[in-house]
């Protein structure tokens, strides 16, 4: 109990208080402390990244071992990892090599596999968005109507064709489409985002305080 519970709580408390107070102390000794510990933590982040990558690999490995339906796809994941690692080591982790800056094998995998795959996965959203917009964007009440109007104006002011249409249809109005969009972004949108930001800021501070005082212990993992 003492080693598993109180020691980590004490460590979090000391670290939290010291580095909160450090902010107010301009003395070089205090700056040196921050620099040193911060440098350590960059190294620690590297170690913890291994943890994340390993747990992902572990879950896919478990699927392959147990032969759950679709385990073949988990094998594809491993194929991808090992293949990339192999070319990565061969290319010493660089995209380009030599004076001529020719593309390495890793650079090839990056350019022709990773970039198109990731890009395409996310570009699917353009299609989903179009259909969701069509099916759900209805001005069924004041709130939805306002949301819709703002979205409509922002989209119109966002693209050259929209600006062109505005000039043709609403050209007699003093503001241009991009100015209307700019105002929406800078005034009502900004105000709401700032209100949210103030709330989020208070929430972040409260959470940090709870970590320091040992009330919030989710970082300890299960059973913490």
């Amino acid at each position: 109990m003492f080693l598993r519970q109180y020691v980590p709580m004490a460590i979090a408390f000391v670290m939290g208080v010291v580095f909160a107070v450090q902010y107010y102390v301009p003395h070089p000794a205090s700056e040196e402390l921050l620099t040193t510990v911060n440098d350590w933590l960059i190294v620690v982040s590297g170690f913890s990244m291994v943890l994340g990558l390993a747990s992902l690999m572990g879950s896919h490995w478990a699927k392959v071992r147990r032969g759950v339906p679709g385990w073949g796809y988990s094998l594809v994941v491993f194929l991808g990892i090992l293949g990339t690692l192999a070319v990565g080591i061969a290319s010493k982790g660089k995209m380009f090599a030599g004076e001529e800056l020719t593309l390495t094998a890793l650079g090839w995998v990056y350019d022709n596999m990773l970039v198109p795959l990731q890009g395409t996965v996310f570009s699917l959203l353009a299609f989903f968005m179009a259909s969701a917009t069509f099916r759900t964007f209805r001005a069924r009440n004041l709130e939805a109507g306002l949301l819709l109007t703002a979205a409509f104006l922002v989209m119109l002011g966002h693209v050259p064709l929209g600006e062109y249409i505005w000039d043709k249809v609403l050209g007699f109005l003093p503001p241009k489409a991009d100015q209307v969009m700019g105002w929406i972004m800078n005034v009502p949108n900004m105000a709401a985002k700032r209100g949210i930001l103030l709330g989020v800021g208070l929430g972040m501070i409260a959470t940090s305080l709870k970590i320091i005082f040992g009330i919030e212990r989710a970082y300890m993992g299960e059973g913490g």
Partner: protein
Amino acid sequence: MSPELLGAWVAAGLTLAIFSFLYKDNPFFKFGEHLYIGISVGYSITLLVFNFMIPKWWTPLFREGRMSLLVPTALGLLIWTRFFPRFSWLSRWAFAFVVGFGAGIAIPRTISNFIFRQVESTAVPLVSRGQQGVSFGWGDFSNFLIAFGVLSVLTYFFFSVEHKGPIRPLARAGVLFLMVSFGASFGYTVMARVSLLFGRMYDLVEYSSRGYGYATLVLLGLMVAVFLAQALSKKREGG
């Protein structure tokens, strides 16, 4: 086949495999998606080794003998005890160190940047003084709207009192400001998604040229043929 040409075929094939999801969830898509996960993990490990482990940890610690690196090494090893359930509680010490530090540095900086700076630029004069004396112009109106908006959104997220009496219209105004901002976000998001679509379309169009052996068109044809054959065989089975 030159690496460039092969690259075009691979890139076009993978792009189409992912796009095939728009028709339905299918093995091409699943293959592409899992390959993506694998490659990105493999790439991350490669960079972790070559840009971090070797130059910033191994070389300074074991070649140059920078002993101060023993502390983070010990912390890192403690984190790795998560791999061994019997000792995994030791990782709490390291996590407490990291999380405690993070909480400590976050508090004053959040106060300064998320609270003070935001409050300062909201509590601004709502009139301006010019040559002709004090006036209330469009910019002042916007400033008023900003202050009112921030105020009403804060009121909306206030949970200690019922939204009754004078608080009710204020909270209601807060919702309306939120709606405008969600609408603006939506309008912007459309642009982001379309940008990605443009990126992929651009490449697909390029790869369908003669120089690349009509890669896109050939692969697209093949894929459509597979789906057609599948649909036909299903029909035959069913009929």
